[in-house]
């Protein structure tokens, strides 16, 4: 361990050293709240999403907005804004075609996602790099994390939990998307091909009504969650305003990674030599390397 450089470290800059540090081989003891001291580039410092995920997110969100606009305008046909939105898409007959094209593209994006998922996972298993903690699979730890995090928000815990690459919010959202996409595609198929689906449903009358109900309900749920929750999480909440660039660059800022995905940051330290150097230097500068 290097000696404390007394000219840099000042009492105000000194982190609380007792407890809650994580030792990383070749770096030192990293305090849990080191994210308050690091420097970040808003465009992102550390890798988070592959180019495939960036493309998939882009395809999904463009088609989602088109689908939502055309679909909701039809569902809420009697409301004042519906005819205006419909007119923007060239009337219901054209909007119907647009909705179906967008739906086909979204299905393609979903298939693309599943293929990347399977391919990527297989590759990781073959290279013996597969780690369940770096996947979207829900774990018991996530429930502990929620409890811990809520305690922290109420001031009952000094630090946020050490979360994985995907924290509880993201896992919840991912499951919601899987379920929602499945329901919307299944119900939408029944609405698009009623002739074929009539032969498949045990009771065509009930089946079609169920599809009508589920397609509309699930869509409204998805739109509400996206607008009120997803958009606040990525655009509005403190430290995220006006937007995060991850969706385009595929990279996450250092302070965000350490705050909400601490375990993933530890992995980053092991994998990226530059990051290791950076952290080592920072610990030395701030005087965290004393123990």
């Amino acid at each position, binding site marked *: 361990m290097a000696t404390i450089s007394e000219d840099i470290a000042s009492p105000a800059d000194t982190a609380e050293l007792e407890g809650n540090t994580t030792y990383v081989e070749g770096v030192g003891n990293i305090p849990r709240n080191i994210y*308050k001291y*690091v420097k*970040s580039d808003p465009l992102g410092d550390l890798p988070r999403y592959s180019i495939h995920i960036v493309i998939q997110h882009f395809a999904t969100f463009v088609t989602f907005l088109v689908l939502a606009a055309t679909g909701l305008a039809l569902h809420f046909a009697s409301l004042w804004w519906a005819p205006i939105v419909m007119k923007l898409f060239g009337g219901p007959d054209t909007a*119907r075609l647009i909705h179906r094209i967008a739906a086909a593209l979204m299905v393609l994006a979903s298939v693309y996602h599943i293929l990347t998922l399977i391919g990527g996972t297989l590759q990781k298993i073959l290279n013996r790099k597969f780690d369940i903690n770096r996947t979207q699979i829900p774990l018991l730890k996530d429930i502990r994390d929620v409890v811990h995090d809520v305690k922290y928000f109420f001031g009952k815990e000094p630090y946020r939990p050490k979360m994985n690459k995907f924290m509880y919010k993201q896992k919840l959202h991912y499951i919601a998307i899987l379920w929602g996409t499945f329901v919307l595609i299944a119900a939408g198929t029944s609405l698009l091909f009623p002739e074929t689906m009539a032969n498949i449903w045990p009771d065509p009358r009930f089946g079609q009504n169920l599809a009508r109900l589920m397609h509309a309900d699930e869509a409204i749920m998805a739109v509400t969650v996206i607008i009120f929750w997803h958009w606040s999480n990525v655009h509005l909440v403190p430290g995220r305003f006006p937007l995060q660039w991850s969706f385009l660059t595929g990279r996450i800022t250092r302070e965000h990674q350490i705050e909400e995905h601490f375990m993933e940051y530890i992995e980053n330290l092991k994998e990226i030599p530059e990051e290791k150097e950076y952290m080592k230097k920072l610990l030395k500068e701030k005087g965290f390397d004393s123990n």
Partner: protein
Amino acid sequence: MEFLRILTKTSLFLAIFLLVSFAVPNANAADKENCLMCHKYRQIGRIDEKGIKRSYYVNENIYANTTHRNVPCRDCHTYINRLPHDPVTEEVNCSNECHIKPPFSKENFSHRKIIKIFNKSVHGIKKGDSEELKAAKPYCKYCHLNPVYRTVAEERIAPTALNRCLNCHERKGVTAAYKHITHRLRRKTSRSPQEIVQLCSKNCHADIEKMEKFKVSKESLEAVETYNESIHGKSVALGSQEAADCVSCHASSAIHDIYKKDDKTSTINIENRTKICKECHDDINERFVQIDVHPKIEDDPILHFVTMNLTVAFYGTVFGLLGLALIETVGRKKDGIKWQIRRGTTWRGRSKHWLKKYGD
């Protein structure tokens, strides 16, 4: 006296001269008997015994552009047989023959056939009907209102096709005939789906109180509401020209043969429904026609239960997630994060709150 006569003659002559010279070259309607001599005046009318103002004005320009432009007045108003005529007490009978022969036909034209179909349909007046029901049932003019006597606007006239007709026929007549035919080749009704839905609902099928009086079935009572909630209804409401309106399903190409669904002749009778659905939906069978066209989802107990659960899940999720976002914002803000993402750091460092609680 002589002077006065000359003055009267001159002024009359001048008045006629002025009238003739300033008259707009009007489109001419069939008016061999010169009924327009009187009826062309805008002010012509009276207040009848009930105190209702009645106008007898006929706008020649409008009439000359309607479907009936070639029909002389007395072909429909048959009860007029001398001039000036007595006050009119009779209604026009649309099943009259008019003195017009359609091309390639030896018989005079009449609406009799379609009226026969209409009288057999559910809307025709039957023997056992109460006076109230008789009054409520539609008659020709109830749906075929005056403005829609006009010819349907048909913009896409193919000049090449029309030019060939002009080899033998007059331009004016053939244009009208062409429009008349092509429009009906393209579409089932001359009127737009929006107009059809308006026509059937307004003051009639949408008037629940009126419908309740005639003891119609529950489905009929809710028909307008359920149609407007259906995918066909919503599309039509937003201006679709493709989605089904009332007549698309409830009548054959005769348009007027609307029957109750239990009637074997009805287009929507379960036995015949495949045929009518096939007008839009290809490759269908008897399973497809079981699908609700006027869906009422709450009526199904299972779907009602599903809806209830989805509603609870919806509000639970939205408020749960919003609550989480709120406490998260408050918590992180207290810990010292700034709103805006910044180059460098977004954190203020440890907050006073944190220091007070956990010490330096």
